[in-house]
């Protein structure tokens, strides 16, 4: 498990190792794919179809808690989307070499968590069949959507982010598609000819690519920050105690990067293990990500303390009651679990041994994401039932349908990811090559 075993691959090794993840498909892949696709079908689309048939009442939401797990899932997935593209872009600009082995899968994660998040918007709305009214497209009723709505900001922000991320990941993949094209024949070759836009690898092409890539990297960073700020405004622009907080935008952005980074660690672990990419994804990556996680964890903890403090310091009954419910009410175990997983557990990473241990880092990253998932749930489930009029105080507990759909969303994400790794090399071939020592003339 240490770098001593590491043997630098040659250029040909890189091509062979990575392309074989694409070109050779074993039964293990098909079994995993089959399971995740059927889970997605049974847990996500089945209950969703039922919900469409009977109405959103199939979920556990009620009069005081009009939002529920669907929205908390939405934020979770948007959050998870956050590190991929953002991290990749930041690291690209800062010329951090270690990014190169991981960024492709990280960006893919962004893409697919955004798609999963978009699914939750669809699941959430009451009348899916009219959801196109939120898009500013000319329509026979001559009506526009309401641009003052934070949900509209959200739709805009998420679609922009999705588009930018797609372009970003696609652009970075073009040389790799060319590599796939060159290594394959038949239909696959014809398809990859189209995907690679006829990439030949001339100096001019390389130059243009790197310029465009840099442009997008710069472009994506503010976008990523704004997206989650805007998502937070869905909540913060309401006047509900517990949601109406100025700190929400940084809170969400920080939380998003936090959970996203943890997500990358988990995905890296799995990819490395199942795709035999030990030679490319190495401890150095883990170590760096671990340091990042510690920083994010501390920021996150700080914001949480601020949230509780301002609530207490406000002295209003609204904030008191909501804090009482969050900290000591029915969902208190979840709250303290979140504090444990997201504020306490990451501190173990201060120890270098843990930081560079794949096993430990995987466990910690999963725990962090469990904690972050809980955080999103708690934000919704403990704020809305404690609003302004005590007589209308309520309670929210997710229904079976909601729980199934939440589970199913992970399967959707996995399925999409599995499709992706058969389509695009999940480690950037050309950028990994850049990190290798130059070839000796005599070789």
């Amino acid at each position, binding site marked *: 498990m240490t770098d001593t075993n590491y043997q630098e691959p040659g250029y040909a090794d890189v091509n062979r190792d990575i392309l074989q993840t694409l070109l050779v498909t074993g039964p293990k892949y098909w079994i995993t794919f089959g399971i995740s696709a059927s889970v997605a079908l049974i847990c996500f689309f089945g209950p969703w179809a039922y919900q469409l048939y009977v*109405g959103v009442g199939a979920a556990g939401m009620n*009069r005081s808690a009009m939002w529920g797990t669907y929205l908390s899932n939405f934020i979770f997935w948007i959050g998870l989307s956050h590190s991929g593209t953002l991290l990749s872009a930041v690291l690209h600009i800062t010329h951090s070499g270690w990014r190169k082995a991981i960024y492709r899968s990280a960006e893919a994660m962004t893409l697919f968590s955004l798609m999963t998040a978009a699914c939750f918007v669809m699941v959430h709305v*009451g009348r899916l069949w009219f959801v196109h009214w939120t898009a500013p497209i000319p329509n026979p009723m001559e009506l526009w*959507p309401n641009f003052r709505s934070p*949900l509209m900001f959200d*739709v805009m922000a998420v679609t922009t982010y999705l588009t930018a991320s797609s372009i970003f990941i696609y652009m970075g993949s073009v040389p790799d598609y060319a590599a796939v094209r060159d290594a394959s024949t038949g239909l696959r070759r014809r398809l990859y000819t189209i995907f690679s836009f006829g990439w030949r690898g001339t100096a001019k092409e390389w130059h243009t690519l790197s310029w465009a890539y840099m442009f997008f990297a710069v472009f994506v960073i503010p976008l990523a920050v704004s997206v989650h700020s805007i998502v937070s405004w*869905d909540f913060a622009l309401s006047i509900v105690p517990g949601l109406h907080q100025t700190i929400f935008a940084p809170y969400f952005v920080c939380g998003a990067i936090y959970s996203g980074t943890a997500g990358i660690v988990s995905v890296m672990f799995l990819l490395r293990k199942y795709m035999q990419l030990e030679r490319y994804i190495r401890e150095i990556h883990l170590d760096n990500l671990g340091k990042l996680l510690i920083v994010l964890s501390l920021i996150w903890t700080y914001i949480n303390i601020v949230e509780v403090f301002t609530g207490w310091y406000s002295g209003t009954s609204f904030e008191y009651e909501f804090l009482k419910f969050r900290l000591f009410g029915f969902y208190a175990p979840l709250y303290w679990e979140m504090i444990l997983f997201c504020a306490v557990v990451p501190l173990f990473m201060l120890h270098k041994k843990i930081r560079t241990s794949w096993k430990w880092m995987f466990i910690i990253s999963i725990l962090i994401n469990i904690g972050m998932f809980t955080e999103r749930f708690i934000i919704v489930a403990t704020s809305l039932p404690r609003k302004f009029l005590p007589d209308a105080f309520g309670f929210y507990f997710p229904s079976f349908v909601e729980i199934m759909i939440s589970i199913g969303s992970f399967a959707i994400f996995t399925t999409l990811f599995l499709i992706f790794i058969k389509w695009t090399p999940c480690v950037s071939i050309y950028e990994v090559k850049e990190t290798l020592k130059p070839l000796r003339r005599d070789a």
Partner: protein
Amino acid sequence: MAKITDKIKEYTRPGYYEKFDYHWTMSIDLDRCTGCGACVVACQAENNLPIVGEKRFKERREMKWLRIERYWEGEYPNLKLKFLPMLCQQCDQAPCETPCPVAATYHNQDGLNTQIYNRCIGTRTCAVYCPYEVRYFNWFTYTWDEPLEQQLNPDVTVREKGVMEKCTFCVQRIRMAKDKAKDDNRRRVKDGEVTPACVQSCASEAMQFGDLNDPNSKVSKMTKNKRAYHVLEELNTKPSVVYLQKVEKHD
């Protein structure tokens, strides 16, 4: 450029209106209100509110555009129970109007916070943003046991699943009164011509309804009463429902 600044000004004004044509307002005198619940049934009858059944009540998915909230004060035996009829406050600075992505709820020129059922896509954001929690969501498509559906008011849309609904100040009655005024070649609706179902039924005459723009209307006078206040006034939603404080001490 001037055009743009004008536009910005227009957008920064809540509700977009300098002055409402009518400013429909309701006053509820808590010193008269007995909490009997006649208004609740009147509303249910007038506005085609579904009979949801015990199970839905248990899930807290009741459909009552007007509900009566109750608050105890003190301990036995020096107890007081206060009733608060709570319906859509038709806020002039409504927190619910801005977040609707499809503009299914908006402020109209009569000061009404309208809800257009057939435009609603059911994001429920308005209900989350509403501090009074007076918006009700159609979690299911409700049906009526035959022949109860014969009672349904033909002037009010029956809502389907996935649609938000709320008190409309009986907009169908307002429209009808305006229609009548037009028939009689009157420019304006007279005071007292529009009475929402709840106001009509209130046995202790605790509720008044009318046009705040008309200084002589009953409701204008009520709002000038020194007991008049808004519930959760500190949120600055500028409600169109004015409550009159219960008189606590007897001379």
